[in-house]
């Protein structure tokens, strides 16, 4: 089923917030890191993996999800967290390492946990699939509503955990949807040199579940495919695999010189920016008016600015509180 105008606006709005958030974080990340790029410095130290360009995957899938549905994500989580409804202020504060952050500063950008909306992410490639299977198992055992979605990259489809998780989900007929964000690069390694098949969607057949390849990084196409997969899961028909073509407009991590990209690839990708493409389409079809567009952009800016301001103004927890929450 195609998205309604409201759903399209929902997706567009969340893509705007997501992209604005990433662009803002990128600027702040570079504070203290110029002219010498030392990732230990600045208000946001450590690694940073931005999701620019991959927003359609997050909104196309999460448009179908409720608070009670479970999402596990990876080291590149911001767009999915935003689409899932994670508290943006607390998320920003966590990225800044502040006491008011989702984990009081203990997790940081790769370990965002929001129990209110059942979102979590983690940094080891491929290891979010198992927990998604487990969440789906739990709901089935408790006869409680909700499906689980695991987001990961095409590189993770070569991890053992991918194959085991799909098999287990199929054998136990669990309400889980596996979503591959295929951005063609695993740091510097191109997909063709690492993956035996052209499309990971064909791997679904090995685990007796539907596998759908969605080209074009188009929110509407992703929405349709995700709707079917999530519908199946909700109806008790078991797991599905979505293989979504998307683009990573930034480097693997901030600091990545991206020398491995073929010449011209970056410029080509930037010209296909999915948000600009979607904006144009919505305006052309009348699903979005010029004034609505301005309003949405203003709202997005306000939301992001407030979140960043909250993060900047929040205090750090005491250093000794690093000892807290090791155990329950």
């Amino acid at each position, binding site marked *: 089923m195609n998205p309604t105008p409201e759903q399209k606006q929902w997706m567009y709005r969340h893509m705007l917030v997501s992209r604005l958030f990433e662009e803002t974080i990128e600027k702040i990340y570079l504070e203290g890191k110029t002219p010498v*790029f030392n990732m230990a410095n600045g208000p946001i130290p450590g690694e940073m993996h931005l999701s620019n360009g991959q927003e359609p995957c997050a909104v196309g899938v999460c448009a179908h999800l409720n608070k009670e549905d479970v999402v596990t994500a990876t080291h590149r989580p911001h767009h999915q967290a935003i689409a899932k409804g994670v508290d943006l202020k607390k998320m920003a504060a966590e990225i800044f390492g502040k006491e008011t952050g989702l984990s009081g500063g*203990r997790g940081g950008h790769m370990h965002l946990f929001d129990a209110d909306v059942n979102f979590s992410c983690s940094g080891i490639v491929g290891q979010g699939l198992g927990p998604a299977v487990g969440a789906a198992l739990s709901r089935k055992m408790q006869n409680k509503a909700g499906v689980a979605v695991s987001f990961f990259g095409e590189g993770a489809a070569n991890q053992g955990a991918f194959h085991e998780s799909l098999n287990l989900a199929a054998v136990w007929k669990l309400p889980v949807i596996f979503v591959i964000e295929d951005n063609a690069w695993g740091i510097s390694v191109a997909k063709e040199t690492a993956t035996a098949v052209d499309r990971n969607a064909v791997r679904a057949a090995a685990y007796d579940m539907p596998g759908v390849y969605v080209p074009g990084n188009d929110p509407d196409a992703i929405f349709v495919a995700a709707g079917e997969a999530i519908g199946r899961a909700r109806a008790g028909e078991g797991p599905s695999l979505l293989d979504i073509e998307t683009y990573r407009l930034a480097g693997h991590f901030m600091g990545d010189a991206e020398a491995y990209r073929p010449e011209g690839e970056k410029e080509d990708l930037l010209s296909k920016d999915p948000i600009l493409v979607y904006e144009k389409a919505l305006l052309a079809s009348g699903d979005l008016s010029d004034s609505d567009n301005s309003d949405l952009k203003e709202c997005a800016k306000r939301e992001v600015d407030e979140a960043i301001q909250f993060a900047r103004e929040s205090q750090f927890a005491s250093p000794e509180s*690093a000892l807290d929450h090791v155990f329950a």
Partner: protein
Amino acid sequence: MAAKERKLTVARAMAEAMAQEMRIDEHVFVMGEDVGPLGGVFGNTRGLFEEFGAERVRDTPISETAFMGAAVGAAADGMRPIVELMFVDFFGVCFDAIYNLMAKNTYFSGGNVNVPAVIMTSTGGGYSDGGQHSQCLYGTFAHLPGMKVVVPSNAFDAKGMMTAAIRDNSPVVYMFHKGLQGMGWLGTEAGATVNVPEEQYTVEIGKAATVSEGEDVTIVSLGMGVHHSLHAAAQLREQGVSAEVVDLRTLVPLDRDHIVNSVKKTGRLVVVDEDYQSYGVSGEIIASVVERDMSILRSPPQRVAYPDIPIPFARHMEQWALPNAEKIVTACLKATQNDE
């Protein structure tokens, strides 16, 4: 005529050792994620792909279970693989091949099958990379029988120990600290970039080194900890305390004689370890001394180690938890002021 001075970063030293050995032994090959054209995320395979090509310098998929297992199988069949585990924190996805196969096959085969593999892996934090990308895990690897474990603290040892590791017919886990590599984008401890001879040479695996002599207290450490200890020793000197700094260099086999001899001289022991405190390297060093001869200790041994918590992301929390020169100075003063 004296050899020309030429410093290398640890990353370049590792790459040079591998290149020089690969030139003379066609069985040596490298595999791992981003080790090919990128030259390794931490620069340690720089130049290898250009010189040796894709057959001998192989970028792998993100499939640690498979390629660690493959390293074991290839090593048992006459090859000499150098395989990279990009972050030691990732060991969880491939540890069976490491501790149950690589480390045990020689024993299970009664010495008939050797596994001459080298696993090189990055360790350490201090730059806010969070709990799954900053660990040292020295104790985890050292604890399990059947694999040698080396931890270079500088480029000279890095090159020599890599050559020794490749030539060793036993499996060697080569753990390099990210903060010593020489990567501009990470910040590097300058003391790790030292003069490295151009020719091939080995640094014997299983031998500790006294990197700074002293009389009043022995500081034992490894990796980045050696540099913190040297900074602490400089501060202590100004306070009239003479600290001897011992660089373990190898965890397995552990050079217990060297450690005991140093403590015999000074009578006091401080162990510095960036790995988790409990059940690890620091406890092993102390136990090794105490069980040998308690009478050589004039005060209770001290340890400066990482608390038993997941590594927090927030910089102020992580820096609070990490070993540093100040903590080592405090521990040394405590050791020297508490003679029994």
